[in-house]
């Protein structure tokens, strides 16, 4: 006798350009998966971690007054996907998941924790049967001296 619902799984075997595979924890404690592709924009947000001015005894030979204490560098990755309208409800949950991970190695399977930017979900056209969505992920900060 059947003990669970019949879950229909769509099989997507199409070729993807610039794929980014993501898994995240949903509110019920289950794990979801999605493959983003097509446009993939990489950017970097940096911040100054402060600087100080040092005493210069000889201005003729000095290299400058100002010294950096540290910097913050956070790579960003914008991804898009062409999805069925019915998938949008599921994909939205990635924005409030407490754990989102990006696949970095297939064998063995390895993940890296990433962070969707708050409110960065955009549905471009809901009148169609398919829509393009865009999410920006913050990747792990770069470790810098300081």
């Amino acid at each position, binding site marked *: 006798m059947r003990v669970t619902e019949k879950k229909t799984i769509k099989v997507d075997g199409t070729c993807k350009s610039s794929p980014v595979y993501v898994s995240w924890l949903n509110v019920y404690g*289950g794990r979801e998966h999605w493959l983003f592709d097509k446009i993939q924009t990489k950017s970097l947000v940096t911040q100054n971690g402060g600087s100080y001015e040092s005493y210069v005894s000889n201005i003729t030979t000095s290299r400058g007054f100002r010294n950096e204490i540290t910097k913050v560098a956070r790579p960003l990755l914008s991804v898009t996907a062409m999805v069925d309208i019915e998938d949008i409800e599921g994909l939205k949950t990635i924005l409030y998941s407490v754990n989102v991970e990006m696949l970095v190695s297939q064998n063995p399977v390895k993940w890296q924790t990433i962070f969707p930017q708050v409110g960065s979900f955009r549905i471009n056209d809901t009148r169609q049967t398919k829509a393009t969505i865009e999410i920006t992920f913050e990747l792990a900060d770069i470790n810098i001296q300081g």
Partner: protein
Amino acid sequence: MITVTQDPSILVNGVVSKWFPVHQPISFTLQRRDMEVLQRSRVGNEIQFKFASMPSSVKAGQTIAYVRKQSTVNLVIKSIAGNYIKVANDPFLLFWENGFINLNDALIGYYIETKVSYIDASLIKRTIGTVKTKTDSFGKSKVSVQELLKTRCDNSNQFFYNAINKKLLNEGSGFILDFREAFNTFVSAYVPSNSFYFANGSKQLQEPNGYNMGEFVPKLNFSENKFLSVFKRPTFFVGYPFSLSFIYSDLLSNFQIQRKEQTKGINGAVIANTADNIFSAERNNLNRLMLKQSYPSTVKTLDVWLESTGVATTSNRTERRRFFTGGFSESYTAGATFRPLRPIDYVTNEIRPRNEARFITFRS
């Protein structure tokens, strides 16, 4: 004596669901019952209670709480003789059922201690911590254990996508409570509860079954139990690791469960039907279910579900069951003590039964 008067399990389709989201209250109500009243009568201008025995610490002049289902009253003991206690006359005391009394003055500093344990990968019961609670005028006390259980959860993806189904202890596991009472210098022995289960999740407003995962718990008598997915129709991207989360529930014990798949082409015509046994050793935890994969390119969708073959399997765990207030209790071997989740637990490719030598090294 302590009884569990209320636990968070509920009946779903006639069977008991004992699965709870760990980010919401998991509360048990316990009741202290010091001495059952065997008989009540009016003797002269006093009411006399009869008990099975009388502790020597009970003295005249002490206050006792007389609890019946509807009421609790504080009474002062006027005299004691053998197994009888006499209190001032009040016809109200003879109403309703016999009830019981709690010895508020005789048992000094009374509290209930609840030990919270989880079941680890090798089915060993390991203590997380204890909760001490005082009782109210009805002898009741409420114990919430979710905060302790939460320490066993880890949000990261610990599956290596190398088995048809796999339990992941960081996503949910079994737990057992042990109760004991303490007063004066006395501490009673622990009495274990039934096994319960938690999942690293939470329920939404106005969803059925409240703080209970009932609709996600596979039951043999109901065929629409849900997978733990928010997608109406999830997508499997060929070549990428994919799994469906489900609760491999205690209700499926002793039956061989199969993963059934029906693959379909672009017009919805059936291409193939497959059935594969899943590992029964992974039950009583949150599980990941993988697809069969390696489909021909004509496959566009597939239906996947779990089915019981109705064939009994031999149990891989201790299934000695003993009766306990409100149900049955499964026995587990007691392990040492709590070890917090540390990244080092997952250096190896799988969550393996814990190594005892390592365990002692890291004991905190």
